[in-house]
């Protein structure tokens, strides 16, 4: 069987626009929960899509028809790692704490049980990076194990274990801090 014909520039642009509209919220959510503030989340989202645009044609060829969301999230993941590295060099601009993350645009919907949710979010911030990211992908973005595995560059089995351990550790953290206010959590 012959290879499929490459897409024209205009077809590629159209296809990328669709990808962008479909996954803008996913990338933004991921960025927001990673960096903890809207300003940097916007920058990270923009950079993610610009980088994706540059490599889109190749990614499309190599995806072999599989969804491209893990690829996009992987780009955001790598850019977020650079963000943390840059922040480490510039300690005067400290990362905002979990209490900020717990007040996104949808705050109105989170009034009930807010304190408990803040404790959970504060606990998420205390997790090791890989566990925290896996939880963000699963619960904020609704990605399945296979997608998360592709985004993190791990096997499906390793991802399942990672998620399980992340939830168990988080349960432990929230259980320990249950009586204390979330805002006391030390910023990362």
């Amino acid at each position, binding site marked *: 069987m012959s290879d499929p014909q490459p897409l024209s520039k205009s077809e590629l642009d159209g296809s990328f626009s669709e990808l962008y509209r479909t996954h803008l919220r996913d990338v933004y959510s991921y960025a927001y*929960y990673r960096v903890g503030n809207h300003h940097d989340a916007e920058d990270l989202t923009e950079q993610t899509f610009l980088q994706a645009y540059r490599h889109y044609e190749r990614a499309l060829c190599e995806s072999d028809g599989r969804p491209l969301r893990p690829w996009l999230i992987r780009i955001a993941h790598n850019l977020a790692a650079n963000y943390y590295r840059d922040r480490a060099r510039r300690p005067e601009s400290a990362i905002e704490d979990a209490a900020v993350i717990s007040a*996104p645009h*949808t705050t109105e919907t989170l009034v009930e049980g807010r304190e408990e949710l803040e404790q959970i979010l504060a606990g998420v911030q205390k997790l090791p990076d890989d566990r925290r990211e896996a939880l963000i992908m699963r619960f904020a973005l609704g990605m399945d194990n296979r997608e998360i595995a592709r985004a993190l560059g791990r096997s499906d089995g390793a991802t399942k274990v990672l998620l399980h351990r992340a939830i168990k550790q988080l349960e432990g953290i929230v259980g320990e801090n249950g009586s204390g206010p979330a805002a006391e959590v030390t910023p990362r």
Partner: protein
Amino acid sequence: MSTTEFEARLRAALQPVEPPEDLPLRLERTLVELRELAADELEAWELSAMRDPRNWARPAAAAVVGAGAGTALVVLRVRSRHRRRRAQSANVLDLAERTVRDLADEARRLLPGGD
């Protein structure tokens, strides 16, 4: 609290976050600018490269790709015959003339109302 209940609360805590309303528009504008910038750079490269006839096929291809799929086909076809034209050409100028003629013929063939 069971693990299932905990997961439900985790899901409630980690709700998807809607991007600011102006972000899609801003991002689309940036992408359009990026495309235009790429086109401008291509154009500048094209002008400088036109001095060397060996590069004539590439700017022609790049320009046509920007114009759309139908015209991209012209370049693909013309480029596929590049080796044969080179063999038939007496010199570089002859090769350039043959390339331009081939491009024009191919474009005429694909244009509505063409042969």
